[in-house]
């Protein structure tokens, strides 16, 4: 009798676990299908196209390509510029992280939002802004005859500009929440201020610094738009080289090999990143960020604050200001007015149409990214998520690092036959853009979903709410805000997506970044000025989206 009872109970508990996994699989089905169809398949298809000759894999090509001296040069440049950019970004941004976390000064909130603007700016805009600052006929050229666009410094500075916010957000966000009393406890036990910082604060921050450094390394390692515009013929990253091989030299097999190389490198970076994130989740004493900041005291702290403010103005605000100034550098807003005219040789449509296209595409991409990302986050946030599911978490980050050019070109060759013939469909562009948006949605939602106290859900269940109602009544109201923030980020990155869009946007339907790049590729003052004008418009749209988000943002939402 007892034995059967035990068995019944065992079976029912196993049934529960099975139900849990079934629910999780149901949630994951959408994201998995999405990634299989619109990411794995196109990438696999283009790699196969490059490496398969007459149905036979030519893996020997990999060794051939990697040993070519010009390719080795590209690999070497990609790596060292990413390392240098990361080191430089940390050097410049860590004092900023400290100042924004621990000092209370007028305008702090606004400035915190302002330094985030570059991160959501399209890379094309960043490149254009730096061109206006340090390029031929740029501000420095006019003032002192200094040009940096032929040196690697332009690229490095643009990368610092772009990633400053990653460090301030990731490291500063944690720094602001570290309990200052921990350091005080160390002081009471006889540690000097420096020693207390080194022994207590630094170890707590180290995983966040590592995670931020890895993200910066990832973004700069795969940099495309910035290098495409500022690199000239001398400097080329893997991503730029893939683009060149694919669209200019039509050497698909070299492009395929480079895609694989980048894929492996990015996979390794993400694996290390996942490890640091897990370390970061280790139990730290966190407090409300609003209570840790105080006004700077003493000459040293005021000097630090002043230094950070000057850096922000010179490095982050100046390029944007110059961009705006250049776009206005003709009588009667000529560069803006001419955007509406039927331009002849550069476009089939007036450049202004790109704004409408961009907004439509970005809205559709946002909708897709939010649905897919929210489903994935809901599945990943479940407490019983196993190793397989956590693996999927890392996989979701891959589109951030895998060559967008490859994805774009892969779309063209993989999604061109029934049942999935999307070549003529407008949805192709939003699909590609959503791929980049999903990781942001997941990263923003996941911490919030995980922070929802499981016992709140239990309280609802005991009061009679079914699992679906628990989600609607408990989770949704708590994550609604994070969902909006995620949507905003997805919107901004979709708007700025360049690498994939440049391949698949049809000539009569260009997006803003594509139009900017095309204008810059043409000679003449008018094209240059129009590029500046379009970039300014794009920047304003992104900045407005971000500033709206900043009002919604809470301390717990996300790592970006």
């Amino acid at each position, binding site marked *: 009798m007892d034995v059967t009872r*035990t068995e019944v109970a065992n079976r029912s*508990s196993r049934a529960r676990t099975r139900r849990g996994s079934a629910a999780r699989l149901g949630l994951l089905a959408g994201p998995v299908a999405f990634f299989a169809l619109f990411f794995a398949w196109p990438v696999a298809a283009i790699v196969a196209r490059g490496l398969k000759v007459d149905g036979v894999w030519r893996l020997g090509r990999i060794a051939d390509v990697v040993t070519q001296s010009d390719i080795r040069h590209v690999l070497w440049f990609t790596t060292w510029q990413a390392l240098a950019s990361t080191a430089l970004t940390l050097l410049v941004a860590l004092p900023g992280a400290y100042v924004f976390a621990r000092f209370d000064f007028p305008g702090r909130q606004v400035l915190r939002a302002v330094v985030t603007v570059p991160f959501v700016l399209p890379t094309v805009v960043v490149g254009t802004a730096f061109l206006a600052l340090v390029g031929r006929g740029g501000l420095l050229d006019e003032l002192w005859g200094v040009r940096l666009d032929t040196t690697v410094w332009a690229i490095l500075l643009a990368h610092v500009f772009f990633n400053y916010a990653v460090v301030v957000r990731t490291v500063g966000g944690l720094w602001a929440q570290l309990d200052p009393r921990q350091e005080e406890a160390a002081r009471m036990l006889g540690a000097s201020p420096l020693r207390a910082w080194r022994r207590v604060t630094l170890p707590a921050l180290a995983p966040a610094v590592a995670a931020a450094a890895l993200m910066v390394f990832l973004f700069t390692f795969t940099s495309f738009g910035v290098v495409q515009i500022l690199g000239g013929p001398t400097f080329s990253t893997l991503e730029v080289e893939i683009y060149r091989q694919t669209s200019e030299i039509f050497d698909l097999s070299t492009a395929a090999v480079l895609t694989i190389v980048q894929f492996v490198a990015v996979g390794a970076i993400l694996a290390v990143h996942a490890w640091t994130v897990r370390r970061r989740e280790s139990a730290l004493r966190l407090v409300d960020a609003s209570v840790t900041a105080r006004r700077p005291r003493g000459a040293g702290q005021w000097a630090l604050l002043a230094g950070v403010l000057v850096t922000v103005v010179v490095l982050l605000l100046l390029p944007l200001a110059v961009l705006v100034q250049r776009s206005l550098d003709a009588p009667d807003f000529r560069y803006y007015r001419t955007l509406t005219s039927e331009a002849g040789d550069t476009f089939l449509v007036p450049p202004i149409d790109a704004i409408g296209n961009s907004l439509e595409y970005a809205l559709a991409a946002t909708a897709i990214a939010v649905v897919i990302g929210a489903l994935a986050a809901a599945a990943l946030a479940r407490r019983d998520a196993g190793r397989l599911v956590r693996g999927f978490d890392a996989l979701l980050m891959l589109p951030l690092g895998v060559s967008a050019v490859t994805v774009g070109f892969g779309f063209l060759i993989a999604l061109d036959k029934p049942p999935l013939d999307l070549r003529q469909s407008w949805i192709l562009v939003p699909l590609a853009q959503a791929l980049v948006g999903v990781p942001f949605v997941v990263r923003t939602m996941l911490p919030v979903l995980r922070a929802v106290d499981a016992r709140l859900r239990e309280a609802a269940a005991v*009061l*009679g709410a079914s699992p679906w109602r628990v989600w609607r009544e408990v989770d949704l109201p708590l994550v609604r805000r994070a969902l909006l923030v995620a949507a905003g980020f997805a919107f901004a990155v979709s708007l700025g997506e360049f690498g994939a869009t440049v391949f698949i946007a049809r000539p009569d339907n260009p997006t803003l970044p594509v139009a900017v790049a095309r204008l810059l590729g043409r000679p003449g003052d008018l094209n240059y000025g129009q590029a500046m004008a379009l970039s300014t418009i794009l920047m304003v749209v992104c900045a407005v989206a971000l500033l709206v988000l900043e009002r919604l943002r809470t301390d717990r939402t996300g790592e970006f």
Partner: protein
Amino acid sequence: MPQSLLSLEGATVRFGARAVLDAVGLEVAEHEVVCVLGPSGSGKSTLLRAVAGLQPLDAGRVLLDGRDQAGVPAHKRGVGLMFQDHQLFPQRDVGGNVAFGLRMHGAPRNEQQERVRELLELVGLPGAERRAVGALSGGEQQRVALARALAPRPRLLMLDEPLGQLDRSLRERLVVELRELFGRLGTTVLAVTHDQGEAFALADRVVVMRDGRIAQSGTPLEVWQRPADEFVARFLGFENVVEGTVAGEAADTPWGKVPVPEDAPQGTRGLLVRPAGVRLVPADEGLPCTVAARTFKGTHVAVHLQPEDAPRLEAACALREAPEVGDVVGVEFDAAEIVVLG
């Protein structure tokens, strides 16, 4: 015996190799208030979660009204659970929290409003419907949590450390209120707490748990007067527990010969001497002890006595009779305050 509302049969929950609930059997009759008492980690909360359906059993059964609950999910069991830290929904106001269970059961809106009003009055917060839960004090949150748990009229109400986080005076007042309330409503209650005072004040029956097993079950008076073993005695706060050999009406202990009640079981056993049973006499009579410490307890003074080669003794004295620290006194024992443990 009438059928129990709740019965657990060999309920077992393991976390890894450790059995958090180890073959627990427990019956709760209708209208009964049962309090599970035990130190933290003894499995009390897991017991409630298992009954609520939030924690699957590894073995055994939970029956409600005689029906096996295996495979019945939490939201269909019709029991209420008040969480230790209340777990009020932060995005809803007081009224929204209390009405939650009613909404889940599809009660019409006007009925919800009526019931919320009635319950808030019952728990002493009339008219609090529109207040934000974040602005409530600990005691008020506790009342709202209680009203929320009572609203769908659960057949069994479970309370997890219901008064745990409140300060002492509030706790003592609320425990009386709860007792009256449950008596008036005829609610069947299963509560868990680590505070013996709370358990004794609240319960018809007290169940003491230790390491996932039930150590003793009985009315508060029974448990207080006759702790089942050394663990229960010590958990109830008794310090004077030693092993002794009982022969006839006396026991051989490290404190010397100690008188025991007439019907005491014989042989080597645990012996509990209540502080009131430790009588102070002049130093040359009885067991000589040095006064090591004295603590003021309001109604009496607890005097800690150190005999020469034996464990410390605690004695309860009237304030004006209490000796000073360092004094040497003699000790005699009172058979009526001595319990031979099982």
